[in-house]
């Protein structure tokens, strides 16, 4: 059998229209490549979309591609990721599944208070797929602790476990702050563990388990990821009945060029002259250009640097998209604010943890408070749906919030 394993597409995540388009193109390219490889099925281990209710453009392209796969009888197995969660359970993934465009593998039932997962069997290959969702703040840990494992571990055949959690033992050192679960929470004896949520490429044959694979994001989801990863990718996996062969396939749509501009002890004009003379010699050839300004200016303030001129120069030299980063730049009189993370999730997680337990509430210990806080952030982050009136939107948010607080 042959299948493609991708994760963390985050369609709709970028604000910049060109980046958003690249993001969508990464998904399209990956699907096209999978079809050309004649895969038997596709696994998407969570966060196909960046929210439970994605915007039109991204949704349209995804649906078109899923329809093509459907027409070629290539099933797509999905699980809900941390960005796709909705307290009501109503998400776009349900809509897509009901339309027959994908199959949600995170299925089960409650037996004596425990969660029993049921296998979804791929008709063509007989592969048995069980899935588990991901939640923000690592809340799925409680689900794992209630998971019945005997039925999963004793099942015969080629088994795939899809999950959307970082595994503690596999986190790279620069992601050590990330919420994660130890591998001991996962059921053993699966042939393939299709991971998601961890934005890093990783594979390991784990004793007592099987091959654990993280394909990383399909398209970098932040400036930091653009610099670190350059591009996204997915895995093509072959199983010949005896051995699994998993190959990482990068999806490189364009190059990423990153420039660090040291503004320490320089005036705004000195700093800009220096970078302009450097950039004038470049030919970006449709690359994504990242300009990182850092340091403390000798005089003036960061706003005195003519960013527009610098960005315009980059476009004139063939840049596809230009992004500037000035968080670590300060003026002579401004205090430096230390960052506690580089991505929104990292900052969010750090702040929530730091302030947990400050207010004593009956029935709430810090851990419960952290879980509730993350769940409330998820809910209050929901966007108004197309066609929804303001009062309907407000009522929906209030109802979902009340549900959380009533627990």
């Amino acid at each position, binding site marked *: 059998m042959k299948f493609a394993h991708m994760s963390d597409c985050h369609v709709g995540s970028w604000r910049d229209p060109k980046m958003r388009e690249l993001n969508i193109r990464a998904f399209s390219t990956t699907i096209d490549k999978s079809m050309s490889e004649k895969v038997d099925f596709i696994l998407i281990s969570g966060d196909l979309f960046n929210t439970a209710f994605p915007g039109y453009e991204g949704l349209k392209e995804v649906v078109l591609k899923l329809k093509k796969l459907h027409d070629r009888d290539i099933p797509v197995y999905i699980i809900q990721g941390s960005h796709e969660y909705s*307290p009501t359970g109503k998400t776009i993934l349900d809509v897509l599944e009901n339309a027959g465009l994908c199959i949600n593998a995170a299925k*089960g039932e409650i037996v004596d208070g425990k969660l029993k997962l049921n296998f979804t069997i791929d008709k063509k290959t007989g592969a048995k797929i069980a899935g*588990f969702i991901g939640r923000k703040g690592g809340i799925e840990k409680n689900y794992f602790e209630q998971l019945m494992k005997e039925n999963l571990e004793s099942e015969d055949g080629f088994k795939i476990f899809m999950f959307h959690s970082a595994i*503690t*033992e596999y986190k790279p*050192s620069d992601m*050590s702050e990330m919420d994660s679960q*130890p591998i001991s929470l996962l059921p053993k004896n699966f042939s393939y563990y299709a991971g998601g949520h961890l934005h890093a490429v990783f594979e390991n044959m784990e004793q007592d388990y099987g091959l654990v694979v993280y394909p990383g994001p399909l398209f970098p989801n932040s400036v930091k990821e653009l610099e670190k990863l350059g591009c996204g990718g997915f895995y093509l996996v072959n199983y010949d009945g005896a051995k699994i062969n998993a190959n990482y396939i990068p999806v490189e749509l364009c190059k990423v060029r990153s420039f660090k501009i040291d503004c320490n002890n320089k005036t705004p004009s000195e700093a800009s002259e220096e970078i302009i003379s450097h950039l004038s010699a470049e030919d970006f050839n449709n690359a994504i250009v990242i300009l990182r300004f850092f340091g403390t200016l000798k005089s003036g303030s960061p706003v005195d640097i003519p960013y527009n001129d610098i960005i315009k120069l980059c476009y004139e030299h063939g840049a596809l998209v230009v992004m500037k980063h000035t968080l670590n730049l300060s003026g002579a009189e401004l205090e430096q604010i230390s960052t506690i993370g580089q991505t929104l999730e990292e900052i969010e997680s750090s702040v929530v943890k730091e302030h947990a337990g400050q207010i004593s509430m009956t029935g709430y210990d810090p851990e419960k408070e952290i879980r509730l806080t993350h769940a409330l952030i998820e809910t209050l982050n929901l966007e108004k749906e197309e066609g929804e009136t303001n009062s309907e939107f407000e009522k929906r948010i209030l109802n979902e919030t009340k549900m959380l607080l009533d627990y």
Partner: protein
Amino acid sequence: MSEILGQIISGSFDKITLRQKANVFLEIGELLVADTDRGKIIFQIYDLLYGSQLSQQNLELVSGLQLEENSNLELMDPELRSYVLASLKPLILIDQFGIKLCKTMPKFFSQVRALQPDDLAFLTKPKHPLFLGNIRSGSKELHIPIYLNSQEVFSHHVLIPAQTGRGKSNLAMCMMLNNLSEPTAGILVLDPHDEYYGRNRAGLKDHPFKENVVYYTSKKPPVGARTLKINITMLQPMHFQGVINWSEAQQEALYGFYRRYNKDWIEHILADDEFEGFQEGTLAVLKRRMISILDIDSTSSGLISHGLFDVHAGESTINDIISALEEKKIVVVDTSNISANGELLIGSLLGTEILHKYQYYKATGELAKKPVVSIILEEAVRVLGVDALAQGINIFSTIAREGRKFKVGLVAITQLPSMIPREILANIGTKIILGLEMAPERRAIIESAAQDLSEYDKNIASLDKGEAIVTSNFTKFAIPIKIPDYNSLLQEMQNKAIREKYASTESFAGMKLK
């Protein structure tokens, strides 16, 4: 009014002689009180001996008649003529102003009574309480809990000296159970016998707040436990100090590789890379020793790890452990399945990184916001003993000397305190002394105690399982305590706990359920 137990009849300041009242049975270590005009003086018995109005010769004669001739000869007024004498040492004086070290003597012929709970009303629960046990008077446990300030105690180090079977591990377990109930410090346990988590018996995993226990093991982690994996890129040459005896050439080669290859230095050593300036033989020995201690094979298809030092996983393990400690959790690292050198290497790595992190916090002004971190070291002589230190300083001796400036402390457990250098013993602020049979061991502790324990030899020798004496820079006197059995403490905690788990587990929101 409390029962009168005896009367002071003679002696000197630190050796007051008390005559025991008839039908009273005083014990070594018992606490007594003399009420004086200046306040209450609390004494402790450190010796018991017989007294008699009859001369020794006559006593022997009477005894001989009773034993050898079955004589029914009896002494007249036996309770008046023969009695028990107790040697007392004054501990503290409690007056209207508070408590102070005792520098006076009670009146001649003062009567002495048993200690009552009210006498110790001055003992309060500090802000960051570390519960050690209940006050003990001889073998009698009084239900008066003893709390010390955990921030002070942990940061100034603790020594738990005791022979086998006296309850060292039980004490460590009780300290951790209490920290789970009232977190005041982050505690790292290097557990060479895998006894604290409770895989096959009651342990930390059974505490109501078990989510604050993080358990690392390399052998079949139970559900929820973390697999102990440390990526080789996390290791630096300094972590091997005190673990392996390198020759000078080998040491230079190690640092040479590190300077050139940075985090990939071990990979290059194992790959047989040449390095100008170093002999092949030196590099070969380096490689061989690395393979042995790290349990990694170098093959044609790359490095293959067989043990906990990994080439793929475990990059965030150290950071995860430090983060957990900063959240005042208890981190248990099971080293029972690891070679002796491997165990030392992990300890060295963790100790170094924790100390460095806290040194950084001090430099950046963040230290005040961080909790104290304490490292529990079983068989502490392996790293703090004279023989170990003769091979060079290691991170634990550094922590013992300097750790308190950075809120990093040790809890050193050992049967052989005499093997620990005096200067290290002197740096340990609290000693919780359990039973020590061997005289040299008792002497080592007595000589380094925070209080004058010169008369405590018999007291320490007679400590039963679970009985201890706490001598600390943070107590006014050496406090005799009874340490609870951790099983009953755990049971008590389980009974008291009122927990409400966040109910999302009941609905498994997000999963498609039938």
